[in-house]
C-alpha cells in the first residue's frame, strides 16, 4: 500500500517535470574548434570574399569580410551619415533629393557574361522607388536614380541582367497610373502595377529610363534575370493576384495560383524604340493590351516570394511561401509554349501560360520556402522561413532534398558565394535571419539581426559562425575579394572639381552679394585659410581640398553649433554650405583624427554685423601662405 502511494507520488513528480522539459529541441548549432579554424583570419591578413549586406530600413549597405564575418564598413546610400558628411555636403545632399530615409533591400553586383565584374553595386530603396549605384572603385554612392515615375515602391529591384544592360524595378504596391485621386474600392479598375526597365550605361554605369510596362495590379515581389539560354528575360513573382486592397493577409492568400511574370526586355525596349509606348509622367509606358509579345504570366502555387534562375539558365525556381515545395519551371518549355501560342487566357492583356506546360518539377523542400541560391556542383539551396532551415537539393532528377541545416531563426534571404551568377564558387552560404532572439548578449528589446556562415564545401552543410548585424539585411552579395581593386586615395591629378585648389597661393575667400565662397586646403595639420571673415546673413560655401596623397589621412571639417560636418578624403574636394546667422565668433575644427597635432587643426569664422564692409576677395597673409607653401614642399 505504502509502495503504491510512493510510486504514485513519484509519478506525479515525473509528469510535472516532463511537462517542463525543453527536451525535444535541437542543439544550438556549431561544431567547435574545427569550425573556428575555418573562419579564423590571422591578424593583418585579409578575407577572401567581400559580402555586401543590404541595410534594410537603415538605408545603407554593410560590407563584411568572409569567412571571418568581420564588419569592415558601412556605405551610406539612402540615409544621411553626418560622420562623413553624406547628405550634408552639397553634392550628396542633392543626390539624396530631400529624403532622409530609404529601405534598401536587394544589392545587385554588376555582371559581365553573367558573372560579377566587380564594377558597381546597385541597390533599391523600396518605398521611394529609387535605385542607387555604388562605385566599387571607392565604395561611394555615385548615383541615385528615381523616384521612378508611376511606380509605388520597388521591391523586385534591381536584379541586373547578365551584362548589366538593365536593372529592374517592379511595383510592390499598385496605384493609379498616373497617380490621381480615385476610390480605393475601384482597385481592380483603376490601379495598375508597373515593371520598369532601367538602362545602365556600359561605360560609367549611369542609369537612365528604358521602359515601363503596365501590369495587372498584383503585388510584384521579387525578380531575377535570365541567363544563358534565358538571357533576354527577366522574371518577377507576384502575390495578391486576387487584387485585394484591404486585409491582404487574408484576401491575398486565397487563390491557389499566383504568377511569375516573364518579361522579354529586348522586345520591350524595341517596342519603345518603335514608338509603341505612351508617355505617362514623362516615361514611355507599354500597355500589354496593345503591345504583344513583351510579357507572359506563369502560374505559381500559393503566394510565391523568391524567383531564382539556376546557373545554367535552364530553370526558373519559384517558391510558394505558403506551401512546402519549390516549383521549378523549364525555360525551354516556357519558350515552346509561347512560340506555340498555348495560352490559358490573359490577365489585363498579359497572356497566361498553363502551369503543366511549363512546370519541370516540384521539389518538396520544407515549410515556408522563400529564396534559392546555387553552388558549382549542381545543387540548389532554399531558405525555409517556417522551418528555420536551409534545404540543399539537386537541380535535376530525381529533384530531391539531399541535406538540411538548422539556422537561427526564421531565415529570409540566403546568400551563397557568387551564388546567383553563372559560376557560383560553392564555398559558403550565409543565412540572413529575421529573428535573433537569444543568440547574442541581450541588448534589450531592439534585437540585432542574426546571420550564420555555412560551409558548402563538404558533402554536408556545416555551420561555421554566427554573427549579429544591425537592422536589417535582406538580400546580400558575396564576391571574390580579388575581383575588386578599390583605390586608397583619390589621385590629385584626377581632381577636376570646380572648387578644387592645389596650392596655398590659390587659397581665398570670394564674395558675390551675400554668397561667400571659401576655397581652402586641408593638410596635416592646418586649414588654409584658418580665419574666415564674413557678414551676418551670408551664405558661406566652404570648398575644402584635401591635398594629402597618403593612405587613411582623411580630414574632417566640423563647425560648432551646427549640423555641418564632413570628411574630406585625400585628393578629394567637398563643398559645404553654412549660414552666418548671427554676429560673433564660430570655431571650426578637424573632426576626423588625422595626426599628432590633430587637436591644433582648427580655425575661426568671424561674423561681423550686417553691413560691415568686407573685401570682395580675401587672401591669407603672404607670410602665412609662404609658411604653408613651405610646409607643403617639404612633405
Amino acid at each position, binding site marked *: 500500500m505504502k509502495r503504491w502511494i510512493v510510486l504514485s507520488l513519484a509519478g506525479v513528480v515525473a509528469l510535472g517535470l516532463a*511537462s517542463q522539459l525543453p527536451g525535444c529541441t535541437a542543439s*544550438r548549432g556549431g561544431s567547435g574548434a574545427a569550425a573556428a579554424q575555418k573562419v579564423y583570419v590571422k591578424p593583418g591578413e585579409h578575407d577572401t570574399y567581400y559580402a555586401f549586406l543590404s541595410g534594410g530600413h537603415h538605408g545603407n549597405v554593410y560590407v563584411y569580410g568572409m569567412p571571418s564575418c568581420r564588419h569592415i564598413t558601412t556605405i551610406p546610400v539612402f540615409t544621411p551619415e553626418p560622420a562623413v558628411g553624406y547628405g550634408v555636403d552639397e553634392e550628396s545632399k542633392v543626390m539624396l533629393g530631400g529624403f532622409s530615409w530609404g529601405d534598401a533591400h536587394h544589392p545587385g553586383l554588376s555582371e559581365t557574361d553573367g558573372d560579377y565584374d566587380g564594377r558597381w553595386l546597385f541597390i533599391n530603396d523600396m518605398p521611394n522607388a529609387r535605385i542607387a549605384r555604388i562605385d566599387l572603385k571607392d565604395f561611394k554612392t555615385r548615383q541615385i536614380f528615381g523616384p521612378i515615375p508611376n511606380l509605388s515602391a520597388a521591391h523586385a529591384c534591381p536584379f541586373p541582367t547578365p551584362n548589366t544592360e538593365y536593372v529592374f524595378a517592379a511595383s510592390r504596391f499598385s496605384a493609379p497610373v498616373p497617380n490621381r485621386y480615385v476610390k480605393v474600392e475601384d482597385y481592380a479598375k483603376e490601379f495598375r502595377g508597373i515593371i520598369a526597365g532601367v538602362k545602365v550605361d556600359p561605360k560609367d554605369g549611369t542609369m537612365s529610363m528604358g521602359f515601363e510596362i503596365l501590369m495587372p495590379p498584383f503585388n510584384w515581389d521579387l525578380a531575377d534575370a535570365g541567363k544563358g539560354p534565358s538571357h533576354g528575360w527577366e522574371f518577377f513573382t507576384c502575390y495578391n493576384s486576387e487584387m485585394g486592397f484591404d486585409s491582404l493577409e487574408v484576401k491575398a492568400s486565397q487563390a491557389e495560383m499566383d504568377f511569375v511574370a516573364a518579361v522579354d526586355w529586348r522586345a520591350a525596349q524595341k517596342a519603345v524604340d518603335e514608338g509603341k509606348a505612351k508617355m505617362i509622367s514623362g516615361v514611355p509606358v507599354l500597355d500589354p493590351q496593345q503591345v504583344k509579345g513583351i510579357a507572359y504570366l506563369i502560374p505559381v502555387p500559393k503566394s510565391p516570394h523568391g524567383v531564382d534562375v539556376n546557373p545554367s539558365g535552364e530553370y526558373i525556381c519559384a517558391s510558394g511561401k505558403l506551401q512546402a515545395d519549390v516549383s521549378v519551371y523549364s525555360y525551354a518549355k516556357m519558350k515552346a509554349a509561347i512560340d506555340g501560342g498555348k495560352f490559358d487566357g490573359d490577365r489585363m492583356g498579359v497572356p497566361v501560360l498553363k502551369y503543366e506546360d511549363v512546370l519541370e518539377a516540384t521539389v518538396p523542400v520544407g515549410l515556408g520556402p522563400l529564396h534559392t541560391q546555387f553552388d558549382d556542383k549542381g545543387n540548389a539551396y532554399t531558405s525555409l522561413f517556417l522551418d528555420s532551415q536551409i534545404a540543399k537539393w539537386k537541380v535535376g532528377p530525381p529533384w530531391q532534398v539531399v541535406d538540411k541545416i538548422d539556422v537561427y531563426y526564421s531565415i529570409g534571404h540566403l546568400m551563397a558565394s557568387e551564388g546567383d551568377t553563372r559560376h557560383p564558387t560553392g564555398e559558403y552560404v550565409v543565412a540572413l535571419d529575421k529573428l535573433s532572439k537569444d543568440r547574442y548578449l541581450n541588448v534589450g528589446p531592439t534585437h540585432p539581426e542574426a546571420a550564420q556562415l555555412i560551409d558548402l564545401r563538404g558533402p554536408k552543410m556545416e555551420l561555421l559562425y554566427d554573427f549579429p548585424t544591425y537592422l536589417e539585411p535582406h538580400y546580400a552579395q558575396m564576391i571574390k575579394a580579388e575581383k575588386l581593386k578599390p583605390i586608397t586615395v583619390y589621385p590629385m591629378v584626377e581632381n577636376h572639381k570646380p572648387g578644387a585648389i592645389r596650392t596655398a597661393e590659390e587659397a581665398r575667400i570670394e564674395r558675390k552679394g551675400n554668397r561667400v565662397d571659401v576655397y581652402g586646403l586641408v593638410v596635416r595639420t592646418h586649414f588654409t585659410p584658418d580665419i574666415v571673415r564674413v557678414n551676418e546673413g551670408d551664405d558661406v560655401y566652404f570648398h575644402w581640398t584635401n591635398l594629402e596623397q597618403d593612405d587613411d589621412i582623411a580630414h574632417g571639417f566640423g563647425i560648432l553649433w551646427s549640423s555641418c560636418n564632413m570628411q574630406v578624403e585625400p585628393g578629394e574636394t567637398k563643398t559645404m554650405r553654412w549660414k552666418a546667422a548671427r554676429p560673433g565668433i564660430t570655431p571650426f575644427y578637424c573632426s576626423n583624427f588625422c595626426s599628432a597635432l590633430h587637436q591644433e587643426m582648427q580655425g575661426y569664422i568671424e561674423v561681423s554685423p550686417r553691413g560691415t564692409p568686407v573685401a570682395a576677395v580675401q587672401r591669407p597673409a603672404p607670410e602665412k601662405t609662404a609658411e604653408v607653401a613651405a610646409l607643403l614642399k617639404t612633405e
Partner: protein
Amino acid sequence: MHYLTDRFGATERRMIWLAALVLLPVFFFPVLPIWTMKLWAPQYREGLTLTIYTNTIKGDLQNINTLNHYVGMHRITPDDFKEFRYLPQALTFFGLMALIAGLVNRRWVAFLGWLAFSGFAIYMFSDYARWLWSYGHDLDPRAAIKLPEFTPPLIGFSRMANFKVLSMPGPGTVLLGLAWLLGPLAILYEMRAASGRRRPRRAA
C-alpha cells in the same frame, strides 16, 4: 449486498477522508494544472506553454493565438469554456460526497459518489477530446496556410506544421486519478481484510 450497507473499516474510512481531502479544496484553491501542452518550433526552442487549470487556461495564450491564426485555428479564450464554470464546483461536490460518506460512515454513499465521479471523469475526457478535435478541424477556410485537418494530441507527442507538441496531464489530474483510484483500492483492501477475517492466519 450487506457489503454496501455496511460501515467502513478503519483503513477504508481513512481512504475516504483522503479522497475528500483531495477533492474538497479544488473549488477554493484551483492551483494545480490539470493538463499542460508544450509547443516547440525552431524559433521557439524554449517552447510555448498552455496550462489548463480547472477554472482557466494560462500560459503563452496570446502568442499561441497569434501563431494559430496563420492556419485558421480558433482563438483559445478561457471564456469559451463553460466547463470552467462548473468543473471546480463539481470536483468539490464529489469531495463533499466523500466527506458525507465518511461522516455517515456508510459504504453505499461512497460507492454512489465514486460512480458519479467516474461518469463525470469519462464525460470530461471525451469533452476535452472533442475540444481538441474541433480546434484542429474547424479551421477557417480563408487562413493563409491551409493545413490538412488534424487533432492535437490528448496525450503524448505529435508534429503540427513546424511545431512539435507534447501534451501531458498535469499534477491536478494525477491527484484526481489517485483519489478516484482510492475507490477500487478500498474495495480491494476490504476484500483482503474480509478473507483474512474468514481464515484467520495462524502463527507460522
